[in-house]
């Protein structure tokens, strides 16, 4: 029964990614035709669409690379989301774990994030600094910012871990967990693989 479920999911993923690949090729072909005909604005529009297709495909692939659970909290598959935007916002990839708001949010290819990363790396501006609730940690060699966000109703703290690289920011929100579990979870994410895809 479980096997059947997995096979259906895999088939569905293949169909979805196949459709996107087709869309990409169609958009590039449309861009070429428009460009050859001197319709520059149309060619540009088609390329924007092709770019969004790539963002969607990459986002879906990144979702498959994220750990299936966070400290015992299972993935909420229905909440998996990839949004491709053109311009300043970039693409966003979202995954929820459990029911307490624990999640991973990735914003990629955004110039806004590139500026934010500069900010995060400036201790003077309150970026990579240490105080009673914030400290700088290294996750697989990436300098990151870990912030303790107070206790929840179970008396366990929540954490937010921000891992900036290139024009990408990974934000892990982990509720009702200890620091070690947050770090263990972050270390399960194949950051090098994700960085190579973006």
């Amino acid at each position: 029964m479980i096997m059947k479920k997995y096979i259906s999911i895999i088939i569905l993923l293949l169909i979805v990614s196949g459709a996107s690949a087709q869309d990409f090729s169609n958009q590039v072909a449309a861009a070429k035709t428009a460009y050859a005909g001197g319709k520059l604005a149309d060619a540009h529009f088609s390329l924007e669409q092709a770019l969004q297709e790539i963002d969607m495909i990459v986002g879906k692939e990144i979702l498959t690379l994220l750990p299936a659970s966070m400290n015992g909290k299972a993935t909420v598959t229905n909440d998996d989301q990839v949004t491709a935007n053109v311009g300043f916002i970039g693409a966003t990839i979202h995954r929820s774990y459990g029911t307490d708001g624990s999640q991973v949010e990735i914003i990629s290819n955004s110039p806004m994030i590139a500026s934010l990363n500069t900010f995060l790396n400036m201790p003077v501006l309150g970026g990579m600094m240490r105080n009673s609730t914030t400290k700088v940690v290294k996750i697989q060699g990436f300098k990151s910012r870990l912030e303790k966000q107070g206790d929840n109703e179970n008396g366990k703290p929540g954490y937010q871990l921000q891992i900036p690289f290139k024009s990408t920011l990974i934000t892990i929100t982990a509720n009702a967990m200890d620091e070690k579990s947050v770090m263990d979870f972050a270390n399960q994410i194949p950051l090098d693989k994700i960085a190579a895809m973006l």
Partner: protein
Amino acid sequence: MLKKLKEKANKTVNEMVDKKIGNESSSGNAGEQNNTINSGNVSNHPTNRGGGGLKNTAPPDVNAAMDDAAKSFSAKDYSDARYSLQQAMVGIEIQLGRELLKNLPGSVDNLQKDSLEDKVMSNQWGWSNLTIQRIYSDGKDKQLTITIGNNLLYTGLINAYFGNVYSVQSNGENEQNAKQIKVQGNKALITYDDAKGYTVIVPLGQTSTVAWECINFKDEDEVMKAVNNFKIDDIKKLLGEK
């Protein structure tokens, strides 16, 4: 008698003060010189005295970039595919900018275009921030700058302004420094500032904006006459705006 005494006293005081200032400034200069020499020895930072600059390269080859994107995509190298698509987009934007500049008038009233100041700026982040600029000048102090931009945020803000009925403003006196007008049938905004002169902004379609900055123009009529030398419909058509 008193007057004479006062004049004499002033003269003496002035001479003394001048002498003192002279001594201080000369010793101050000496000190500065020493400091300069010392800092020069200590820091020894070479300063650039010129270079050839960068070579003017052609914009990215759009067809080649699109082919590269397709190849990288087939090989599932999405990062490279993305990069090539962005290069193709930059190439198109620069061509589009040049096309726009070609279609702008060579002179506006008595102002001649300064082609050395022609600018087409594009970046890898897609449509946003494509900026095309041309300056017209009489060689003295009168100048018109036209900037055609594709900036979603900026255009959105101006459109919000037009959507707000309360933004028909007056400062309560007899003069206004901003008002809504129509330029060739398009809603527009004209502002005046003593320091900056006149500015006319016309949002085009969904994401583009064209702005004229007019320095040392006599009045609003002269500004409008100059602005109407530009065919907004042609600009819209090239930018693919409705």
